[in-house]
């Protein structure tokens, strides 16, 4: 029984991934270094901190804010974020009347360069199926209750454009400096499943 349990700690797809890894290494198509590089790149250098820096700057700098909303791609270019997956970035701003939320129903497109790799739930069937059909119900389930008079705009990333939400700045944070504000910005607020 303990043997049985041990074997079940690894799901079948994990075992198969390890098998393919050793095959590709044997065939010279993969180096073990490449895996470490991925872990370091997406574990350390690419992540939602990049997006948080954009948001904090937009809150502090009206010119940058306008540039970010009008042409996100060039506004972000100077930051030299790595991570791919943002050929064209569109930043959509929440207002008191409009709440934005991002999804990719067909696969799991996500703005890696500004938000890192997506959380598991973003890629799972429940979120992808429901957020376009019943966004208000689903957001409430996820802890974000929006009044009926707030318009919800769902952005389904069906081509190569990537979306990021510019959340509303919390009233109590006005006057803080950019470094303090960066700390306040959560990944979920930039996907649009939370507010700050």
């Amino acid at each position, binding site marked *: 029984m303990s043997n049985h349990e041990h074997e079940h700690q690894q*799901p079948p797809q994990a075992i198969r*991934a390890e*098998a393919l890894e050793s095959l590709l290494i044997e065939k010279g*198509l993969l180096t073990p270094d490449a895996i470490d590089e991925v872990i370091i790149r997406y574990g350390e250098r690419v992540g939602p901190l990049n997006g948080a820096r954009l948001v904090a700057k937009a809150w502090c700098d009206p010119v940058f804010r306008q540039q970010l909303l009008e042409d996100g791609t060039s506004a972000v270019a100077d930051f030299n974020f790595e991570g791919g997956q943002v050929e064209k970035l*569109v930043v959509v701003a929440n207002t008191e009347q409009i709440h934005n939320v991002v999804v990719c129903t067909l696969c799991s497109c996500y703005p890696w360069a500004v938000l890192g790799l997506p959380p598991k739930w973003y890629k799972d069937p429940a979120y992808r199926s429901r957020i376009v059909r019943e966004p208000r119900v689903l957001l409430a389930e996820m802890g974000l209750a929006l009044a009926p008079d707030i318009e919800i705009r769902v952005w*389904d990333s*069906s081509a190569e454009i990537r979306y990021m939400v510019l959340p509303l700045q919390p009233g109590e944070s006005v006057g803080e400096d950019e470094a303090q504000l960066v700390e306040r910005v959560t990944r979920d607020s930039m996907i649009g499943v939370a507010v700050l």
Partner: protein
Amino acid sequence: MDGIHDLGGKHGHGHVRQESSEPAFHARWEAAVFAMVNAAAASGAFKNTDRFRHAIERIDPVAYLSHGYYGRWLGGVETLLVEAGLITTDEISRKALEHGADASDLIAARPGLVPDPQGDPPVNSMSDRSLNRPARYKPGDLVRTATVVQSGHTRLPAYARGKIGQVIDVHGGWVYPDTNAHGRGEQPQHLYTVAFTGSELFPAPIDAADDQPESSQDQNIRVCLDLFEPYLTPATSGARL
């Protein structure tokens, strides 16, 4: 195609489960799959992302729903490595048994006996392409989406087919996934952001009981998609946003 991946608006997939302090990878094998996808692209197993996305759409439907994101990538990259002749299904399965797999484990990959041609390598690594022809639509135009799509890869989800929406943004020419995924060329097309009302996409049921209001009757929802020109025809009437 009408595949299992086309999840928008489907019922029955339960609740969203959020994790606190979620890591970039939940296990080393997930990062290994990521690296293997990069390696497969470098070795010519696939030449563009559209082809990789379509390989994922072709995996076993049960695996699609249950193996997770990197499990889906694994099935997709296995398919492409096998179709490119770089590795055989038997080699993978034999190695998996050595690593402790069960012979009855579900295999996600679905390599085709006669794979699509690879087609030419991309003109460049980006997907936007300048087009000489003008865009057919401008912001404010009403458009109707196609009811039928390519039998293979497409980026028009089932829930947005045969629906009327309004163009809200125009993005110039972009590589057309519907042909590019199948080695039939980049055939760049004008790309638009089209906004739909929630009630256009998911109207109220024909005979819903009054005591069972569907959330689809929420009048304050917009869904926006990025759609390629061949998916669209002009619409003369429909709800303006």
